[in-house]
């Protein structure tokens, strides 16, 4: 039995917004894989829950808008992002990142929207969504607004979302994925049921010679208190040959990161991971784009 004070199953997004506005203690529950664990631990004891679990019509699934934007419903399971034909064709690196959290059962309960709203720096979709420059659409009784993911995170487990706002869509515009190939690298001590010690996503767009880096996005989870994009490193290696970029990217990225000590790993080890994972992710992303390195 969970220590829950109230549980309300919303019948629509509008209904969820109303319920959240009416009860100043209410919070959203989607798949529950973060919320219920925190209820169990006592952190969210006595929670007032507004469930969006059943709002499949409005919030579930991956679709392609006419202008090429990939639109992801927030209650889409990790597993359904991974298997979505639209996601695989357009934002394959995100589909692959969604195959890494927890184990198979977790991936059919945990949702991509919950991963974004929980706002952990270790969230496995975070660095990839940052690299793809995702746009986050929020709705509340006060109306709607859109927040670019680079302005989303405010601290460990914190984001700009107000308590009564529902994330209703995650959008990736066409220009942010077209021509890019990428790689999400999760480092953990086990291959399943493991929170990332470090996560790194690199997307590259190669020039026609398949050797020169035309454009690049490099983002990290656990390299700082929030997921980050290392724009300085991106700017420095843009225009370089892939092999040269791979040699330099690690130190460049490290200069922009602020890894910490935790029981999972020391700061020094994380620094080593940042250097090595930047290099390997860049090479892997470039290989997928046809570079012979």
């Amino acid at each position, binding site marked *: 039995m969970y*220590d829950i004070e109230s549980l309300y199953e919303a019948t629509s997004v509008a209904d969820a917004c109303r319920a959240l506005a009416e009860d100043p203690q209410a919070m959203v529950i989607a798949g529950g894989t973060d919320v219920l664990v925190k209820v*169990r631990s006592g952190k969210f004891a006595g929670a007032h829950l507004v*469930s969006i*679990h059943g709002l499949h019509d409005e919030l579930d699934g991956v679709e392609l808008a006419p202008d090429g934007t990939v639109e992801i419903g927030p209650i889409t399971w990790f597993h359904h992002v991974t298997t979505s034909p639209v996601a695989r064709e357009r934002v394959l690196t995100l589909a692959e990142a969604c195959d890494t959290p927890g*184990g*198979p*059962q*977790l991936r059919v*309960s945990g949702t991509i929207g919950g991963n974004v709203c929980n706002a952990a720096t270790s969230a496995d979709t975070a660095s990839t969504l940052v690299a793809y420059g995702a746009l986050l659409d929020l709705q509340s009784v006060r109306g709607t607004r859109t927040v670019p993911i680079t302005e989303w995170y405010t601290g460990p487990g914190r984001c700009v979302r107000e308590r009564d706002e529902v994330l209703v869509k995650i959008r990736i515009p066409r220009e942010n994925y077209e021509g890019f190939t990428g790689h999400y690298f999760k480092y953990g001590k086990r291959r399943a049921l493991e929170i990332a010690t470090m996560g790194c996503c690199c997307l590259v767009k190669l020039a026609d010679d398949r050797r020169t880096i035309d454009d690049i996005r490099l983002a990290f989870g656990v390299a700082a208190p929030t997921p980050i994009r290392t724009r300085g490193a991106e700017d420095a290696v843009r225009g370089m040959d892939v092999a040269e970029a791979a040699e330099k990217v690690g130190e460049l990225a490290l200069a922009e990161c602020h890894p910490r000590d935790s029981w999972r790993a020391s700061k020094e080890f994380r620094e080593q991971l940042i250097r090595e994972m930047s290099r390997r992710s860049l090479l892997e992303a470039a290989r997928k784009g046809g570079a012979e390195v």
Partner: protein
Amino acid sequence: MRILKCTINGKPVQVGYDPRESLLDTLRNRLHLTSVKRGCEVGECGACTVLIDGVATDSCLYLTDWAQGTTILTCEGLQAADGSLNPVQQAFVDDFAVQCGFCIPGIIMSAVEIVGTGKTYTRDELRKMLSGHLCRCTGYQNIVGAVEDVVEEINGTGACSEEARAAFAAVAQKARLVAEE
């Protein structure tokens, strides 16, 4: 008190529940389906795995409130009417895959889901598909072996007994398992 209406192990069920309950609580405490094990209760061990509309799910992190109208399968629904074991259960016996047995009902439910896809897999693929389960006794080798064997028996190219295929098909229907295209 709210009323849950759903289908469990092929039978329509109506049962009163408290909205604070997980599906694990309801299945064990109200319906006495004790094959569903209470392990970590935070989604880490897989001992509480059941099929919900054909999908292997940790029932400890699933609110009973969400189960309205679903079709649920637990290990209790696997045996045939005459008490004979399902081919998935039989494979675990034949391969000596069980030691204390605590993790086994959950793993068997994942195995049922895997066989239900109608496909065969490499040992590495199966290891990944079973990676949501922890076993403290066996070292996993015979468990993966049992799943490998039953997947091959039912979905492989070799000869499979009509009884085994029929027994699995009966369960697949109960669980609303849909083979992948």
